[in-house]
């Protein structure tokens, strides 16, 4: 029995089944020793895009994080 690996996906809207499958397949391909458990989180504060969290690793491709980076750069330039 393979150990469970929790993958959290945060987005502003619920994922479609094909999107969810794509993620699971990709994770299974990468983490072959684990069984992937997908958890979907709908959070409007991310505005758009998606954020994937696997253990301590996080891949943030949300509109919010991009805006936040822009915000920080703007403040630093002032």
């Amino acid at each position, binding site marked *: 029995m393979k150990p469970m690996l929790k993958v959290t996906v945060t*987005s*502003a*809207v619920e*994922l*479609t089944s094909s*999107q969810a499958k*794509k*993620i699971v397949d*990709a*994770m299974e391909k*990468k983490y072959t020793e684990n069984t992937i458990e997908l958890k979907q989180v709908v959070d*409007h504060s991310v*505005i*758009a*895009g*998606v954020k*994937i969290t696997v253990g301590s690793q996080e*891949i943030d*491709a949300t*509109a*919010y994080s991009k*805006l*936040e980076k*822009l*915000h920080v750069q*703007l*403040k630093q330039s*002032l």
Partner: protein
Amino acid sequence: MDIQITQILFQAINFSVVLGALTFLLYKPVLKMFDERSQKIAEGQKAAEAAVTEKNELEQTRKKMENDLKKERATVLKEAQDEAKEKAQEILAQARKEAKAEKSKLLDSWDTEKAALLKEAKQDMADAVMAVSAKVIGKSLDVKAQQKLIDSELETILKNL
């Protein structure tokens, strides 16, 4: 009328005696008295003159002292006035210097405050832009657009996994 020589002689002798007695008893003492009186008067006059002279001398000394005092007073007053004037100018110069320093300090402080306020305003503006952008982006994307965006991001993420 018979002129009796003895009678004349007797009268002459009588007269001489009286004259001699009068000279000795009256004339000389009276003369002495007059002399003494004249002497006293002269002495008194001398003393009066000496007193007048002394008085004049004292008066002159008094006037001289008065003049000296006036001069000294004028000198002291002038010195005091000059000192006061000098002190007033020093105080004025010091006050001007302090006012200038205070003004410079205030201007510097104002410039610093102005810069800080400007920076704060710009940062507030950046925050506002961020908030508005987030709202606008959020509102402008419908579910279909959101899904399309998720697909696009997933393609990139999963490719680089």
